[in-house]
């Protein structure tokens, strides 16, 4: 896997997604709420005729309230596609290979870049967390 990542910002924290797992980036757009779904599921969105679930990355990462999603990163893992809602997409860049210790179950590793700590998101684990039993 290359070290090329899509850098995003959520509730003041820095995250990155491996480019291999990212299909595209788009505006948040109109999201239709889906009652009965997990709390992190904001709803579903029409993405060029496809119905895609929108997942609030901040909620999954345990950052309640702090996020103000503007953009979505369409990611795919294990045949499941979802739009991860983030505050901002900072760009695509190489992350240093050297890893820092992390404890979050939804992070593969963390890296130090430009003096800030960047969590590398485990997309599969994020989707697993959302796919759980219904909340109703």
């Amino acid at each position, binding site marked *: 896997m290359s070290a090329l990542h899509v850098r995003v910002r959520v509730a003041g924290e820095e995250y990155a997604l491996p480019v291999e797992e990212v299909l595209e980036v788009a505006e948040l757009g*109109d999201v*239709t*709420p*889906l*009652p*009965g*779904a997990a709390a992190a*599921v904001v709803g*579903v*969105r*029409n993405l060029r*005729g*496809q*119905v*895609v*679930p929108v*997942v609030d990355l901040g909620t999954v990462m345990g950052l309640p309230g702090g996020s103000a999603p503007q953009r979505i990163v369409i990611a795919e893992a294990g*045949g*499941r*596609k*979802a739009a991860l809602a983030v505050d901002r997409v900072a760009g695509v860049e190489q992350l240093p290979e050297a890893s820092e210790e992390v404890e979050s179950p939804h992070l593969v590793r963390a890296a130090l870049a430009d003096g800030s700590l960047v969590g590398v998101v485990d997309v599969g684990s994020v*989707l697993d967390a*959302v*796919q*759980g*039993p*219904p909340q*109703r």
Partner: protein
Amino acid sequence: MTEPDAELLEVFREEATERLDSMVETLLALEAGGAQPEAIDSLFRDAHSIKGSAGMVGVEEVRAIAHKMEDALEDARKRGEFAHELTDPMLRATDALRHAVGGEGGMASGALQELSAVIAQRGRGPGVAEAAPAAEAAPEPASGAPKERRSMRMSTEKVDRLFEAVGETVLHSRRLERLVVADAALEREDEHLEGELGRGELLLSELQDSVIQLRTLPLGSITARFPRAVRDLAATYDKQVQLVITGADTQLDRTILDGISETISHLLSNAVAHGIEPPEERERAGKAARGRIDLRAGQRGSLVAIEVADDGRGVALELLQKAGEGGALADTLAEAGFSTAEEVTEVSGRGVGLDAVKSHVESLGGSLEVHSSPGEGTTVTMLLPLTLALLRVLVVERSGQRFGLPLTSVEEVLIVSDTLSLGGREAIEVRGQSIPVADLGLIIGGAVQELPERRQAVIVASSGRRVAALCDRIVEEQEAVVKSLGPLLTAVSGYLGAAIMNDGGIALILDPAFLTRRLPRGAVAAVAPEGERPPSKVLVVDDQFAVRQLQRSILEAAGYQVVTARDGREALTKVAGEPDIELVVTDIEMPEMDGIELLRTIRADTDQASLPVVVVTSRTGEEDRRRGLDAGADAYIVKDHFDQNALLETVDRLLTR
């Protein structure tokens, strides 16, 4: 190339599965004695072909099993007969192959040993030394063009994408047509334009038809394993059952077929286990010792009917009577099957799991019907839509969000003004029928805004249940391409999918079965206290004072009015004298008249036959349970597990349904 190509492997799997299906069919035909002499050759060809392609994709276990099958068949060919004792090992070998083909190993060694043993045993028998002269027949017929079906394998996803695209195109052309026609009407008549529009519509509907056909498959594509399953299951019950399949060429949408296979197999198991009687019992009743199950399929208008019919004992008379009192037999059986551990888990066998079958059929937009005659058999009919292509929906709005309701489930749209209270819930009366009223937003669990003063409701019906769903506004009726919410959201219930509206927004398509079944107390509009009905009266029957008092206090605390009786006879007097008694909770063992006798008497009385009766007893024996069920108990609570929640839940459920 070390790893076999994934796509190649998939092609191999599909082909092998088809060959295996055909082998099982041939083996069963041989066993029944109805196979032609070329049956052995056909088995040989299948095994040989599986072996060949397994070698190609490098699946060693598959190759080994297929090879051993060839050995056994070679021997049979030499003798010119298929020995009876070969059937079981061969069938098990097909199972092992199926596993190995699916990528799961582990069954090979057992199957190989078993086959080897049979071959060795046959070898010791007389006649093995005489090598048959005709043994040299080539596995594949060398001459004569094999009737080859020209076909193309394609990923289902690709077909689905095409399918959706065509659906959207159809919708788009309708919108375009409407615009053009509206425009033309203002300006001038343009015959040429209208002609082209008409032609476009025709072409598009042809395109749509052929894409729909692309996605349909015959029912036969999933029935291959049923004869074998029925045979095996019947054997474990020491029953004789013949499965007759008709209409296997009936076409169904693949998405419907995918889910229906398990449902059919469930119905078949029910028929074998509970419908068909043991041979002795059948003979006593003047029937053939061998039972018959028919699996029939056929088109009925825009629906496909799939029936599982047995010639067994039929469902209990009590249930038939109960169903006759209103509501379909399918509902009665499905409800009886809806039970907790403390309650009835088996109602003459037929209720078991029927609720699951019913809800599955409903989730596909279909419905379930059950017909039964005592002693003559039971027929379960699933009515399914031909395709999930374009669904006609009624679009409604609630709290600023649009929802689609399948038009087949919408009975009417009305303004709710006068409501009444039924069991503490708000209801409206429509043509003599009372229908619960609930806020659509609350049913599905969304955040809701206040409803407008002029309350609009859509009467939604699903398998005999109804609800008046309140919403802000009825938008319009339209056709929609229903898209799946995708694998991430499969655990979320209540939706058939989502449709993209003309403005690009999304309307969630609601599942009518979910709406009508799910009426949480909170979802029901608050009831005006002055409309409140007096509390339901429950009769508690038990010979022990302490038990009567315990049950009385539990029920009274929950707001019921309670009367008591010491035995069956006293209970009958109370029931006759107090017609407002709505439910009976009774013990079984009592002096004078026991609970079973009480139950029978109530059921035999036409005025009281539908009175719900809950049987409570300390005895857990199957025999007692069956006696209670046969006599027509609605629910069964075992005293050993007695807890007040179980009692209250049961009483509550029986009184509100």
